[in-house]
């Protein structure tokens, strides 16, 4: 990168790639130069530094000496605290000053101190509201808006200072101002002067007149608080001293390129103040999809790539479709109130209607129907099947789709909400997402299931997959799927799989056609990616979290 610099008013030099300066223009002024900083950190030279100074920096730098305290700088420049902070930080970045931070006991303003600084000390307000001779105390209190305590304190203080005289009148106590009092009002008290200065202050560095005011104000309630605070001091570096000596007036540079400057071509006579491009800028945030939905979209993509069709269906279902059609016996614990949400009003559970298929399902439950199974050998209660619940798994959609299916082979998937009657805690949600897929094919077998599972979980990023025998009420054989977690370096259980039982497929499809199935819970599978350990954090909907959480990049 090349730099051009103004060296004084006369020659313009360019620094070539080989480091030598090359004189380029003998005529000085009318060339516009763009100045920009190429080298990182502390290798700036004086002129570069001066050229890059922001107006705030130009205002602040001259007030920094050997050791200048932050509050003093603020007072001297009459700028806002935050403006001075920014300027000091930039000057420090440029290597023109060093900032020392010291956490020490410091004098800070208390609640009352803050108020009195802005509105005036109560005794001053008191004096101000003495109108003529013998002003009643009441009118002073009302006029100055003093609290009873403040009134009492002011009275005592002013009397001690000889600023007032008190008399007992017919209406009550009255007050008159004395000559010293008038002087105090005119010139202001030492205490007011103390409060007007910037804070926090170093108690070790108080001037004599301050010391008196300090001791007095310390005695009063809530005005001054001595506590650890960060005292900042800034001091010039060699570079800083050199810059001040060279003169930092500047002012020929332009802050912003405007349409006017472009149109008039006046930019040709201007220099643009160089920015310190190394300084960070405030972060912005934009619109985004919720991170769980980002992950869900990725998972749906995997299914689509494998040629699966998406299923959809309602969240409310009859127990028939959610449980009975899947051969879950009517006395299974999962159907109980403590595990499943039913709809109703607390007295009666809401009842729905059953399809004609219910008869075939009843047969299978009671004695196996035409499947050759023993069934559950227990009377099947239609009323229980009619109860409406919030679906406990997305397998209910598989049941519905199978009942309508005319052609095979067919492959379906879903990623959807399911509900469990759980109390919210760090491991449990009452509302979560399940991922599930089925393959309907008369030629399907357990080895194909293993093949699908391997392909699917490999696409999910797990190259090592294994299964072990398990049990689900509606599959046989059943398996639990484990994957080797690349970071944890251990096998973790990630989902379940199996072949639907004949008692499920026969009533739904008309005959016992193998249906391969596998699935897992979405939430637990993505928590690691987002570094979350409490499952509730996935749905906390904290705006800061949503704005800042990492994007799903897979």
């Amino acid at each position, binding site marked *: 990168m090349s730099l051009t610099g103004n060296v004084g008013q006369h020659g313009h030099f360019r620094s070539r790639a080989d480091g030598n300066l090359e004189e380029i223009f003998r005529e000085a002024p009318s060339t516009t130069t763009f100045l920009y900083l190429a080298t990182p950190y502390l290798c700036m030279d004086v002129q570069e530094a001066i050229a890059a100074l922001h107006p705030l920096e130009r205002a602040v730098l001259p007030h920094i000496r050997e050791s200048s305290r932050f509050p003093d700088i603020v007072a001297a420049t009459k700028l806002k605290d935050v403006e001075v902070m920014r300027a000091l930080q930039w000057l420090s970045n440029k290597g023109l000053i060093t900032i020392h931070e010291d956490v020490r006991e410091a004098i800070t303003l208390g609640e009352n101190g803050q108020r009195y600084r802005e509105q005036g000390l109560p005794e001053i307000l008191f004096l101000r509201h003495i109108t003529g001779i013998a002003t009643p105390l009441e009118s002073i209190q009302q006029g100055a808006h003093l609290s009873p305590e403040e009134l009492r304190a002011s009275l005592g203080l002013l009397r001690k200072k000889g600023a007032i005289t008190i008399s007992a009148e017919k209406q009550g106590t009255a007050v008159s101002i004395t000559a010293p009092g008038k002087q105090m009002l005119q010139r202001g008290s030492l205490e007011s002067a103390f409060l007007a200065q910037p804070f926090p202050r170093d108690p070790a560095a108080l001037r004599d007149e301050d010391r008196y005011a300090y001791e007095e104000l310390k005695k009063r309630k809530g005005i001054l608080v001595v506590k650890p605070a960060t005292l900042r001091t800034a001091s010039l570096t060699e570079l800083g001293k050199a810059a001040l000596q060279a003169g930092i007036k500047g002012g020929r540079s332009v802050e912003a390129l405007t349409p006017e400057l472009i149109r008039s071509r006046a930019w040709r006579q201007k220099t643009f103040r160089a920015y310190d491009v190394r300084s960070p800028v405030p972060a912005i945030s934009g619109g985004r999809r919720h991170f769980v939905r980002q992950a869900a979209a990725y998972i*749906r993509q995997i299914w689509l790539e494998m*040629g699966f069709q998406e299923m959809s269906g309602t969240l409310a279902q009859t127990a028939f479709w959610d449980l009975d059609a899947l051969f879950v016996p009517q006395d299974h614990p999962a159907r109980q109130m403590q595990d499943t949400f039913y709809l109703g009003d607390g007295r009666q559970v809401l009842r729905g209607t059953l399809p004609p298929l219910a008869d075939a399902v009843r047969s299978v439950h009671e004695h196996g129907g035409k499947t050759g199974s023993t069934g559950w050998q227990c009377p099947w209660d239609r009323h229980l099947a009619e109860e409406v619940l919030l679906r406990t798994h997305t397998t209910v959609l598989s049941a519905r789709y199978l009942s309508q299916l005319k052609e095979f082979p067919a492959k379906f998937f879903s990623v959807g*909400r399911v509900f469990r009657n759980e109390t919210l805690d760090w491991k449990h949600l009452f509302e979560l997402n399940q991922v599930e897929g089925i393959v309907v094919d008369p030629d399907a*077998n357990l080895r194909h299931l293993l093949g699908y599972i391997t392909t699917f979980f490999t696409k999910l990023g797990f190259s090592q997959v294994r299964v072990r025998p398990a049990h689900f009420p509606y599959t046989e054989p059943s398996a639990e799927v484990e994957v080797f977690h690349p970071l944890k370096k251990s096998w973790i259980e990630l989902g379940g799989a199996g072949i639907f039982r004949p008692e499920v497929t026969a009533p739904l499809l008309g005959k016992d056609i193998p249906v391969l199935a596998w699935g897992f819970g979405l939430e637990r599978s993505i928590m690691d990616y987002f570094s979350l350990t409490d499952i509730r954090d*996935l749905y906390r909907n904290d705006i800061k979290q949503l704005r800042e959480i990492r994007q799903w990049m897979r």
Partner: protein
Amino acid sequence: MPTITLNKRVLESLMGKRIPPAQLQERISSLGVALEKIEGNEILLEVFPNRPDLLSEQGFARALSSFLGIRPGLREYPVTPSKHIVIISPSVAAVRPYTACALVQGLRLDDERIAEIIRIQEKLHGSYGRDRKRVAIGIYPFERITPPITFQALPPDEIRFRPLDFSHAITGREILAQHPAGRAYGSLLAGAEKYPVFTDAKGNVLSMPPIINSHETGRIDAETTDVFVECSGFQYPVLQACLNIIVAALADMGGRIHSLEMHYGKTKRISPDFTPRNVPLSLDYVNARLGLRLSEQDIPRLLAAMGHGYQKRSALVPAYRADILHQIDLVEDIAIAYGYGNLPPQAPLGATVGSEDPFSRFQAKLAELLTGLGLLEVNTYHLISAAAQQGMMCSSIPVVLLHNPSSKEYDSLRAWMLPSLLDVLARNTHHEYPQNLFDLGTAFRRGPTDTGVTEHQHLAVVLCGERANFTAIRQVMDYLLRMLGVGYQVRAMEHTSFIPGRVGEIYAAKTALGQMGEVHPQVLANFKLEMPVAGLEIDVSGLFSLLQK
């Protein structure tokens, strides 16, 4: 899921072999039992609910020793008829109709075995027995009983005996009120006019199922050699299976099984019945489901590893197995014996064409348009408190309630989504404004469907900040519908959740699609929000249907 803790030494002595922990762990997993942990001498297992026979040391050792090849095959459990009978009175038909009983003699019990027997009873009660509702088990020292035993139902006040761990005799009714077991399980007898009891020939009450045994008959102890076991309930096959599980465990402890005649009126059943069940098994079926090419010769060995016999194309299933409903259950056993890890995965079947649900696609497009406006998507629950939807919104919108909510905070299904978004805003008042959010989800109303509930997909948007006003929210709605190519009109409406005169209803092709407006300050106060909110809610299922036409 039921869990059991096994003593490693006892297990090894039952199997007759010591197995190193790593191998034990792997073999147990491969059998299909979830191993929680092995800690010193204790093995903690989670047993799937379809294998109640594994809930005892004996049962588990039996299965594992078959699986490990130590003692494969169908075990013989000889049953000798005793001369004893059990009379079941018709009076029990209305309250607890069936019992299956057995006699096991010649037991040598110590503290450990007694503890094990009690544990078996508890585990079975808790899982297979569905907390005693489906099966209640009684185990008695037979020497305290004078046969024949009768199973009958009597009025609660006519039953009088001293229940176990109680100081004196009380009536049946009093037991339910005063005894801990009565209070715990009394609901199972709710509404019954008569309570079931086992009595002996002397008229002594042996027990009142499913509640408690009598103190006189007592518990089995180290002196007991002969044990009477009964299982009572509502389905005879279930009771038989449960009885067989217990009796097999007792037999594995060295007991000899004796059957009794159960007199159900004129019908006589012999119990227990340990005849193995004959389940026809088709080799073709096995190979088709597993993707293997097993031959007839392979089958007996594989079934034997799982404790079954095989004879002439049928499996002989032991009497204590409650999980073989269909030959597919044997197919799984064969797969387990073969080893799931030994099944080579086969490439997925033929290619099919995938497709996205069109509505899902549509929702993704909506989200894309809205994130393009800089809106942040939130993800809210479908459950919400009825109060948040109605009272806090100054609305009387009808809602669908949960019958058995777990908390008042989530006791209804949302009829609309704006309350959920206001709730999000209320929990984010400490973050920077403006906060502009949207969410897509389901809204529920009562309706004429097979569940009595109609579900519509909604979109809700809230703009929260100093400049959140009607114009701003309308601009969002307008942008969205314009990009979708949907023409619309807005009509003034009355809506108590919004500021009067600042709420509009959105129509497209004469269908009402939703509403938008400035949220009423009372609603904001209810949610403890101090920043104005403009909200929009649209029925996107409706919008989607419109676009289909």
